[in-house]
């Protein structure tokens, strides 16, 4: 085929070069156009209100989420805010949408609207606008709430609660605003102050901000010293405050606590009980999270092990679980999610996908199991008659599927104990299945009949059978399990 621009047969080489160059130019042009088209596929000019921009942001993030492989199978810890970061394309698009608005557009008389504004301003990097809104809102409010609908402490607490949903988390801003309740003139009710400290405590723990964690821990200790007897007996203190203080004391006495654990389980329990006794006051409550209880033997109908990359079913174990003389990690686990549901909890794009006894829990267990080969890791489960939306399954089939899923697919180096769930059916025509509580679940309620053991609940059991710590396993609690395991395994024999 001849090129149209006057080429003759004698100039074939030159012609070919020109032809190729024109193709390359065409490709570059087309690609350029496509990139432009891609960036213009969303016509943000049609969105007239800030609510529409927020909706747009939600839609874009949800679209990205669906494509995101969340859980990298690695030994490194991935922060939840890193997992939740939005792409630049989303931020840029929303920024264009919001470009027509300034902080002056915010209706400060509305009790909640300003929270949406500051969230989206931080999301798109307009920190100064967000801070302007916060400052104006705060300057219109006073600490003393007598006769005032919205006090300054309400705003501080609401702003802190909102900003933890921003990605990346504007941690400096949160700390700055939260610290306002510690100013000399601040008047902040106990429940609000505890709520703010608890939020900062959990966030700084998750973000590994030890400086802020220490600041909040010291503030909690200071707060406790100033409380009256009535305030200490209040519901807020009893249900949240004293546990936040225990975490603060654990942090402040971190080295001593781990030293005591390296010495012996008794020394560890004795040391923690020494300040828990001060915190609990007159009540006889034991240390939370079943710490100090004696772990009961696990009973099961089906046992599976994983050895040399093979999952095998065995009739029974030679030793009982928890195995005496070994450090045990006993995890109650059920399959309530699969890889189709990478985001757990709320379906909102802002929910933290860090919790839930699903894939992140599996990876945490595997990491711990591989890091501590002498750890006796046991997964405890029971049969339900189905998994997800499968066909109804026999107990044998279900136990086998679970073993393949946890020990095979997810390669958790554990022993799997599956108990056949006993149940009865309500009389006809109802016929619903009512499960009877199994001995394992009863034994690990430790005398509290109302307690339930959620899926993912893990119990770290020392060599003498006493429980050192229990929590739902996930990448955050994994760090706590890890440091305790490290101390126990470094114990001099």
């Amino acid at each position, binding site marked *: 085929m001849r090129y149209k621009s006057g080429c003759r047969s004698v100039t074939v080489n030159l012609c070919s070069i020109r032809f190729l160059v024109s193709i390359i130019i065409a490709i570059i042009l087309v690609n350029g156009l496509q990139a432009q088209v891609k960036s213009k596929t969303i016509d943000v000019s049609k969105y007239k209100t800030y609510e529409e921009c927020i909706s747009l942001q939600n839609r874009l993030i949800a679209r990205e989420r669906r494509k995101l492989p969340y859980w990298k199978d690695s030994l490194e810890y991935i922060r939840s805010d890193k997992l939740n970061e939005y792409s630049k394309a989303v931020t840029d698009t929303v920024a264009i949408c919001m470009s027509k608005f300034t902080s002056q557009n915010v209706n400060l008389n509305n009790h909640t609207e300003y929270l949406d504004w500051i969230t989206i301003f931080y999301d798109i990097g307009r920190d100064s606008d967000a801070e302007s809104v916060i400052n104006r809102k705060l300057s219109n409010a006073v600490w003393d709430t007598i006769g005032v609908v919205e006090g300054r402490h309400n705003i501080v607490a609401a702003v802190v609660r909102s900003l933890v949903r921003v990605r990346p988390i504007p941690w400096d801003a949160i700390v700055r605003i939260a610290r306002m309740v510690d100013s000399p003139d601040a008047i902040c009710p106990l429940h609000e102050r505890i709520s703010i400290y608890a939020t900062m405590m959990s966030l700084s723990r998750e973000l590994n901000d030890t400086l802020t964690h220490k600041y909040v821990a010291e503030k909690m200790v200071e707060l406790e010293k100033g409380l009256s007897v009535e305030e200490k007996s209040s519901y807020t203190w009893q249900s949240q405050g004293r546990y936040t203080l225990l975490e603060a004391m654990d942090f402040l006495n971190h080295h001593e606590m781990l030293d005591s654990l390296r010495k012996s389980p008794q020394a560890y329990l004795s040391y923690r009980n020494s300040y828990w006794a001060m915190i609990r006051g007159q009540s006889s409550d034991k240390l939370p999270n079943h710490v100090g209880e004696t772990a009961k033997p696990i009973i099961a109908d089906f046992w599976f092990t994983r050895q040399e990359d093979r999952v095998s079913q065995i009739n029974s174990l030679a030793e009982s679980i928890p195995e005496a003389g070994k450090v045990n990690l006993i995890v109650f686990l059920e399959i309530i999610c699969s*890889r*189709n549901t990478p985001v757990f909890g709320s379906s909102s794009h802002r929910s933290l996908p860090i919790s839930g006894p699903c*894939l992140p829990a599996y990876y945490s267990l595997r990491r711990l199991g591989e890091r501590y080969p002498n750890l006796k890791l046991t997964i405890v489960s029971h049969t339900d008659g189905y998994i997800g939306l499968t066909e109804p399954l026999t107990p044998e089939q279900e136990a086998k599927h679970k073993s393949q899923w946890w020990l*095979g697919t997810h390669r958790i180096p554990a022993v799997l104990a599956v108990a056949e769930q006993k149940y009865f059916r309500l009389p006809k025509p109802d016929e*619903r299945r009512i499960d009877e509580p199994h001995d394992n679940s009863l034994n690990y309620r430790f005398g509290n009949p109302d307690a339930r053991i959620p899926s993912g609940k893990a119990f770290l059991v020392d060599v003498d059978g006493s429980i050192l710590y229990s929590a739902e396993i996930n990448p955050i609690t994994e760090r706590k399990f890890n440091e305790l395991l490290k101390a126990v395994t470094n114990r001099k024999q």
Partner: protein
Amino acid sequence: MSTSKLLTESELSEIRDKLVSYSSGVGITRLAISSSWSSELSWARNSPSMSSDRREVSVVVFRNIKNGLGLAHINQIDDASLKNVMRLAEEVALNSGDPKEPDDHRFPIPVVGWDGGASTWDDKIMVRSIEESANLIHSTTVKAWDKGLMSSGYLETKAHNILNFATDEFGREAPDGISYGEMTQIQCSATVRDASRGGSGWAGKSSYRLADVSESAIAEKALDRAVQSINPVKVEPGRYTVVLEPQATADLIDHLILDVTIMGRRYAESSAHHVMGLAVDPSLSRIRSKMGSRIVDSRVTISHSIKDSNLGVLPMAGVRDITLIENGVLKELYTDRGLVLNELNYNKPNLERNSYRMEEGSSTTEEMILSTKRGLFVTRLSGMTLVDTRSLLMSGVTRDGLWLIEEGKIVKAVRNFRFLESPLYALSNIEEIGQAERVFHPRQPSTFMGFTPQMLLSQVIVPSLKVRDFSFTSTIDAI
């Protein structure tokens, strides 16, 4: 069936074959390929106001690959569009899972077959022209015009057909994996009014069969009722024995069926405030439903059979025969698959549908009137608002013709009433049950999982009822 208004079964099969050839093969594929046609005619103030003819095709593709799920639908059936919709479903399926995850274990995903339905089809509906219907209605509107009355109404004829197809996880055709169903429906209602003298008449009917719905008869009946109800007199509100025409019966119990239907057993057993929720069993921490309890008169039986050609249901997974109320006892509630699997450990859901049949009695409407000393004859009920969810107490109004019965005879038209009544109370106070007939029931069927948009039939067959102590709270000015 061969008409250009719908795709033929072979044309639907051809689309299915193309889609199967465009799929990557592995994993479960479910297809729902359907076509629909509807024609409407409406008139107001004795003149036609709208006429339409709509045709639509729908292709729904569901793919399950490596435990990822993808759903896509399209209304274009050219080769490029079919390729696109299959590719989109597969992309969504692959993206919904985690591609970095190992895939060496799968839970057994059930292969869903299609439960057979009863096709309700009438060729005559497909050949009835809108002009023909318009001419029939025109003759009545002329009469209304001559008498100084205003008539309005609505006529809709429609048809659907659907081809379902399912494979197993290896891409092979599943057992019972193909099903085909088709339906026709005609519905017509007419209202004639004399605004100055307070007269109003209404008539309506729906069926899958053209012969059941005569446009001219409906229009004539509405005209007659309007003339008969002119200059209604005011009577005192209170409790009356009422003779409910089948349409009024349907208007009343439709809310009961709707509440039983929506969310079915799952909802009844999750809220003690639900009308079919009995109470919380404290020892089990579970809510018991009223299943097994007598809730209405022992002569009441309401059911739906998928083989009942007068009711019909298009083929879909999880639809079985159901008897909601048998001899007054709440026998069964609709169940979804999650509920039957989790709570009952079996694999046979019974999904909701809008059609039902209430068993008829031996009386005729004339006999009911004859045996009534003093009561009211009700054409239909309207504007129902739920007052109490626990008892289904509702407030609403009578419409388009209310007559006083005295000593076994209809004596005069009376002004409309507002009523405050529960279908459960009314069905417990039945004196006589009449002959059942198909009524006008235009409620739009719900969408189920994107697979059967507007495909569920909505056929209702109920009898006339004579009910004592029906509560009317006030007269109203509306006609």
